[in-house]
Every structure is written in structure tokens, then in C-alpha cells.
């Protein structure tokens, strides 16, 4: 549904988006992830025809964003960051205005507005002036607006930013449901969010795509095996030495924790090391108080990938 080829957007002296290419398939939900200023918003603005690229091409639903921009805009629902609304209009009046602009036939407008009010849960504020609404409600009005013409593609720029935890859950659920029937491209820097709603993740840093895969594959890519956290009573150094001797253990670190020691055992990736670890502890008669798996989170992947990049860059400079 979205095809991006060698897209570059150059500002006066920096490349906000630097030669990126990617595809988003139909009914796929892709999360665009990256630190502030990575180029997420710029990419979205190009895809929504708000600004053109300096080089490269992009097609959305088969239409070119530069030459066929009106058709593209008819196919997408775009929720910009900070959700700009006309603050002097009532909610249903605003949605009516947007419905007209988006060419919804007269007879269907009322029905579409009701449907969108319903799905975003803002029916009870439909007669309020948008300027009096809280951030969370404004966000939902914005979301209702992006859905109003039943677009094939949704482009959402940080849809859950600034919401309270309950609202975040609600919006995520809405996006997840929409993802069944729509192609969704959303940007965020909240990792559990992408983990929860996205089929694929695209990590972007300094205008470049540094990783793009499913959440599961991204974790595999980093070649970390099963890691375990242990709490053992006994002499720390000795325990460390015997744990290090186990097959399949890559490294062991430890620190004191109360009257016991906490160990972090990193597996090399092949097989489950938990049984061997247990046997080793029992053999030496140490007391095991806790053993738990530690799965690497997206936070860590994200951190590793984005900092690895900067290290490489600084290596190049040196």
C-alpha cells in the first residue's frame, strides 16, 4: 500500500530523511520508531503530501504523492502530532466540516460521524466546543477526523502522546482494531506500544532506517540467548567462577544484594542453560533463592541499535 523508494528530504544543511526505502503491505500495522528529530514526522509529511521530498519517490495506494496528490489525500487519514483542531467549533460541527472536505456524500455524513464518535468514545462531548476539551479528548476528536472518510491508510503521528494511562489503553485498542482492516503507519517513541500494536517495526535514526523487522525477529537479530537472573546466598567470587564454567554461558556478572548476591547470567544463545545452572548451584550446596528469565525488551534493542550507530559514526570520524 505504501511504497517508498530512496526518499530524501534535505533542509538547509541537514538531511532530515536520508535515502530511505520501505514498503508497507495492505492491512499491515507498521511502527515508526526513533528518537526525537529522527525524521519520523518529515517522512509522514511527505507521505501525506504536506511537503514534497527533495529526491526519491513514494506511492500511496498506487498513487504518486507528488503527481497525484489529491488522490493520495483522499485515501489517507492523517493525524498530525499535537492534533491541530479549530478550537472555536463544536465537535460534531468540526467533524461535519471535515466530512464535507473529504468528499463524503451528503446522505452518509451523519452516519459516518456517528460511527466515528462511537468508535473513539466521544459521543458524550459531541456538542462541546473543541477548545474546552482536554488533551485526551482532542486527541480522540483528531482520531475521529482521520477515520471519517473510511480511508484505506491511516498515518498517525504519535497518537498516544500526552494521554493518561487509561486513554492510552483505549486509543491503542482502537488502533489495534483498526489495524485489522486498515493499513496503519504510526510513529511513537513508546516501545511497549509498538510491541503491542505493530506487525512490523521500523527503527529510524538521523534520517536513516537502522532496523526493520517484526518485534520477535529484531530480538533474534541481536543474537542474545536466554538470560537468567539469580539470587544466591554464598561467596560471590566462587559462585561466579563455577557458573562461568557451565557450557553455554557467555558471561556472569554479580553484585551484593542484602545478605545474598544477585547474578546476571548471559547465555550464548544455544539451548536452555537453566537446568545446568540449577545443577551447578546444588552441587556446591549454595542456597538458591530466586531464578527468573530475563527477556530483552524493545527498549534495549532500541538503545543498542541507536547507540551502535553513533559509535560506528564516531569510529568513521576517527
Amino acid at each position, binding site marked *: 500500500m505504501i511504497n517508498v523508494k530512496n526518499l530524501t528530504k534535505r533542509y538547509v544543511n541537514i538531511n532530515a530523511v536520508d535515502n530511505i526505502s520501505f514498503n508497507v503491505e495492505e492491512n499491515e500495522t507498521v511502527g515508526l520508531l526513533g528518537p526525537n528529530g529522527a525524521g519520523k514526522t518529515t517522512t509522514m509529511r511527505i507521505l501525506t503530501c*504536506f511537503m514534497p521530498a527533495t529526491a526519491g519517490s513514494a506511492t500511496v495506494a498506487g498513487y504518486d504523492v507528488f503527481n497525484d496528490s489529491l488522490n493520495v489525500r483522499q485515501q489517507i487519514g492523517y493525524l498530525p502530532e*499535537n492534533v491541530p483542531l*479549530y478550537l472555536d*467549533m463544536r465537535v460534531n460541527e468540526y467533524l461535519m*466540516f471535515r466530512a464535507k472536505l473529504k468528499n463524503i456524500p451528503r446522505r452518509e455524513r451523519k452516519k459516518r460521524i456517528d460511527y466515528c464518535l462511537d468508535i473513539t468514545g466521544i459521543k458524550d462531548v459531541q456538542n462541546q466546543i473543541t477548545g474546552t476539551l482536554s488533551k485526551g479528548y482532542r486527541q480522540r476528536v483528531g482520531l475521529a477526523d482521520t477515520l471519517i472518510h473510511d480511508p484505506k491508510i491511516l498515518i498517525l503521528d504519535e497518537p498516544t502522546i500526552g494521554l493518561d494511562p487509561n486513554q492510552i489503553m483505549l486509543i491503542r485498542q482502537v488502533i489495534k482494531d483498526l489495524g485489522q482492516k486498515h493499513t496503519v503507519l504510526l510513529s511513537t517513541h513508546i516501545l511497549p506500544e509498538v510491541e503491542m500494536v505493530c506487525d512490523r517495526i521500523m527503527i529510524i535514526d538521523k534520517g536513516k532506517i537502522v532496523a526493520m523487522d517484526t518485534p520477535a525477529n529484531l530480538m533474534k537479530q541481536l543474537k542474545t540467548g536466554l538470560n537468567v537472573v539469580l539470587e544466591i546466598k554464598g561467596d560471590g567470587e566462587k559462585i561466579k567462577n563455577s557458573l562461568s564454567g557451565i557450557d553455554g554461558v557467555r558471561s556472569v556478572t554479580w553484585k551484593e544484594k542484602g545478605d545474598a548476591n544477585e547474578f546476571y547470567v548471559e547465555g550464548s544463545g544455544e539451548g536452555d542453560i537453566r537446568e545446568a545452572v540449577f545443577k551447578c548451584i546444588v552441587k556446591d550446596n549454595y542456597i538458591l533463592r530466586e531464578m527468573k528469565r530475563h527477556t530483552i525488551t524493545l527498549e534495549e534493542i532500541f538503545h543498542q541499535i541507536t547507540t551502535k550507530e553513533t559509535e560506528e559514526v564516531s569510529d568513521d570520524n576517527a
Partner: protein
Amino acid sequence: MRNVSTIYQREIKSYFYSPIAYVVISVFLIASGFFFAGNLQFWQEASLKGSLDSIQFFLLLLTPVITMKLFAEETKSGTIETLMTSPVTDFDVVFGKFLAALSLYIVMILPTWIFVLFLTIFGNPDFGPIFSSYIGLILMGGLFVSVGLLISSFTKNQVVAAVIGIVSLIILWVVGFLSTYGEGWFYETLRYAGTFDHWESFTKGIVDTRDVIYYLSFSTLLLFITVRNVESRKWR
């Protein structure tokens, strides 16, 4: 054309949701009431000649206040992004906003017909120059609104848009007077470019196609530049 009407309706509503429309219209009507009374007392004749000249100058100061928000507000609040990513052309947006501001301008000057009513009750005015003056006022309004709209599309600060708009209109007004300082094509061009000379023939009861064309073509040119300027975010 349907998009033009959608945008037009929103802009009109927005004028009357905010205090702008009420403030501008009240200030204008109070001021023109004073001008009318003053001129009537001074000239002692049943015509609008002097009053409309003063009113015309006052419109120069007030029209930029009507147009200042048109683009500046959208740029500042970011709604320009949702607006321009909807399936509408830049022309739809510019023309819809232009018509809305022009309508408010016309609504503002319409109540001054009460002066004409007074004149007919207490005297015997010549209707020719009055009608032609109002045609002139509306054509001039089109030009003033286009100037304000263009300036609003350059800035995100409404106050800046209003001040520069007023200054531009004053320059446009006085530039014609400079033509009295010399002769030749240069001064002739200045005379033609200034609004005052064209306005004056309307007040005399003359609807000259040259003046009509001046206003229409000048407004069209400015609207065209505005569309280009709105578009320019795409190649800047």
C-alpha cells in the same frame, strides 16, 4: 467548487464565533456615523461625497483586521496541516477564504445605507453617484481583502499581518498622490497603480471599465500570488 463553499462556510462561522466580526463592524459603524454627521454639517448638501471618502480611508485601516487571521492563524495553530492534507486544492482554500472575508466586508458596509435613507427623508440626493460609489467600495474591498490575504499567508503572527496590511494599503493609497510631483510615464504609472484615482471616478458617478478592470485584475493577480505562496511550502 464544493470545497470552496465548505471552506467559505467555515470561515464565515469562525468570524462570528470570535469577537472579530462584532468588534470590527461596530467600530466601523460608529466611525462612519461620525464621518457622515460631520460631513453633512460641513457641506450642507444631500450627498455622500465627503462621507464616503472618509469611510474609504477608514476601510483601509479595518480590512486588514478582517483578513489578518485567514492564514496566519492556521499556520500558528497547525490546522494548516490537517487542511492541506485533505483532498482540497490550494485554490479552493485561498478562494474560499477570500470570499468569506469579502462577504464580511460587504456585511460591514451595508448598514451605511441608513445614511441614504436619512438623505432621502430630509433632502433630495442624486442616486447615481451613490450607487456607483457602492460598486466602487465593493470592488475596492476585493482588492483590500486580496492584499490582506496575501500578507496573512506570509506570516504566522496575526498582529504582524494586520500592521503590514495597513501599511501596504496606505502606501497603495498615497502612491497615486506622488503623481502630482512630476510628469512622464513613471508618474503616470504611479497614478494608475494608486487606488485613490480609480476610487474618485466612482464617487463622481462614473463606472469606467478601466477602473473596474484595474480593481479586478489587481485582485486576481494578488490572489494568484497567494495561491503560489501557499503552494510554495512544497518547494521551500
